[in-house]
């Protein structure tokens, strides 16, 4: 089966900055795919290349097996939801949604009917006559979605579409987008810097760092089996332990990662379960997050471990800041990392 989207060894540089460094990538048809990374990691450049707003210095881009590297955006069968929504301010909501049909010379009656259908799909049926400026952020987002979907693209590209929304709305839209993608069965490619968003929505995630893909995996594999120190700390905020500290704790100098929720914080005099790896340290501070508390324990000069304690654990109260404590975890919790 040919991939819906394929990047073959694409490179894009801006002056001396390498935005995308020999990236190859295949996205399967019908997949919800996330491009995850911090700003400047190359994920947005990657999306712009797929959309056709930019061209690679080298490498090819294929859609459905067809080379589109030199095809302008208006001849590619995909649509984009922009970060700033990019709604046309001089058109009504319905005109915005119908724009893709208008430029393809669809008759006005047909246009109006299908725009109304799309607005119903995103639950904005009543808002067709308004101007974009009269809508809230969440509503504009849904208009942008309806406008991008009206051409029935095979691929929908989303550039940080939830970035401008507040937390509650963002969570609602995550569920809505996921549901929409499953109903329509089209490929979604989603750019985000929010690892929680990527983990909860995507089928597969490509983690970008400095113009390269660090790891490409399912959300669970990324979270439980990060391959590099960057992925371990960027996705889920794992502790990365390297060098002398790793050697002191495990006897081997190879780096490993461990999730905060898999580390127990115990009073200094208590003994840990058999077989656990333990070490003592100083409790620097505790941040209360509601569902859990995050403790920072300094175990040596260069290493501060983050440990999460679930609120539901209801265990003995933590010692005061500055007290000596003991941290412990099972050997199986450790994830060995590639030396980068």
């Amino acid at each position, binding site marked *: 089966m040919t991939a819906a989207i394929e990047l073959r060894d694409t490179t894009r540089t801006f002056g001396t900055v390498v935005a995308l460094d020999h990236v190859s990538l295949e996205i399967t048809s019908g997949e919800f795919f996330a491009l995850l990374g911090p700003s400047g990691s190359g994920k947005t450049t990657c999306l712009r290349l797929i*959309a*056709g*707003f930019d061209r690679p210095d080298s490498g090819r881009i294929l859609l459905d097996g067809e080379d589109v590297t030199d095809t*302008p*955006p*208006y001849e590619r069968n995909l*649509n*984009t939801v*922009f*970060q*700033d929504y*990019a*709604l*046309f*301010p*001089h058109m009504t909501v319905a005109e915005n949604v119908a*724009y*893709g049909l*208008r*430029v*393809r010379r669809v008759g006005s009656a047909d246009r109006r009917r299908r725009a109304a259908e799309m607005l119903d799909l995103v639950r904005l049926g009543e808002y067709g006559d308004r101007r974009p400026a009269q809508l809230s952020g969440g509503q504009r987002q849904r208009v942008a979605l309806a*406008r*991008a979907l009206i*051409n029935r693209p095979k691929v929908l590209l989303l550039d940080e579409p939830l970035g401008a929304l507040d937390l509650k709305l963002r969570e609602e839209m995550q569920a809505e987008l996921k549901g929409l993608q499953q109903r329509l069965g089209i490929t979604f490619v989603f750019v985000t810097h929010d690892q929680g968003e990527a983990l909860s929505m995507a089928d597969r995630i490509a983690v970008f760092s400095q113009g390269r893909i660090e790891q490409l995996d399912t959300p669970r594999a990324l979270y439980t089996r990060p391959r590099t120190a960057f992925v371990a700390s960027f996705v889920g905020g794992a502790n990365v332990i390297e060098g002398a500290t790793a050697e002191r704790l495990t006897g081997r100098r190879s780096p490993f990662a461990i999730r905060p929720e898999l580390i127990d914080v115990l009073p200094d005099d208590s003994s840990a379960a058999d077989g656990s790896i333990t070490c003592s340290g100083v409790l620097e501070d505790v941040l209360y997050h509601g569902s859990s508390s995050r403790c920072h324990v300094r175990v040596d000069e260069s290493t501060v471990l983050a440990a999460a304690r679930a609120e539901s654990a209801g265990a003995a109260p933590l010692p005061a800041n500055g007290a000596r404590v003991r941290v412990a975890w099972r050997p199986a919790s450790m994830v060995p990392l590639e030396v980068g």
Partner: protein
Amino acid sequence: MLRHVSTFLHGRNAFYVSLLLLPPLLWLGTIYLGSLFALLMQSFYAIDDFTAKIVPELTLRTYRQLVTQPANVDIVLRTITMAVAVTVASAVIAFPVANYMARYAGPKMKAFFYVGVMLPMWTSYLVKVYAWRLILAKQGIVSWGFASLGLGSTLDAVLATPVIGGPSLASSYIGMFIVFVYMWLPFMILPLAAALERVPESLLQASADLGARPSQTFRNVVLPLALPGLAAGSIFTFSLTLGDYIIPSVVGAPGYFVGMMVYQQQGTAGNMPLAAAFSVVPIVLIAGYLAFARRLGAFDAL
């Protein structure tokens, strides 16, 4: 002391604002609007044909003279035609320049273009007009250039065009048109560039993304969003051409323009009411043009 004033003003916003606004409003109200009103009043008086004295009685006689005398109607029509032609030409020339400045030029190139566009405005207006008369003269550099390229006959053919032609560029409406466009072009480029700069790149990308070819994007997105700038620029070029009296008297064919009539009627002829009536013409035309631009939706995005 100053601190007491500040403390007193703090929280008394309305008082503070009116204190700031009073002097300019007084100036605007009495000197500017007052004199405009006095001028308008004059146009409703008429001159006594025998004594050549102004009769301070309200009458529409002067306006009747303006719209019924063929010579006066000709002047108004000639001025409007020139103003429309200059505006359209300025817009056509300015658009690519403004678009380049707003969208494609790097910071250095942009600064260069802004300075380049404004540079002619730092020179005296009269110097430029007289310079143009020399440039366009029969033995001027333009005819010389045409002749050197072996195109002298082409220039002659163009100048042989009835009405807009003439013995030389400097004494034809074509020459006057060239000078007008040169003079007012910056007033079109600058607001247009400002309007185009406010159009986010993502709107153009969104249009292309939805399947619009560049020409469709231009028609459906760029042009409507540039309309406020185009309207502002065309108001400048249109009204400046309507009111100017120096360019038509230095360059071009001998036909009169509204500005020249105003100058002449209030000066040598001493017919203040007719001068006032003539100066009402641009006001009415601009008001009509603004209403038209508003109906086109030029100010929707403001």
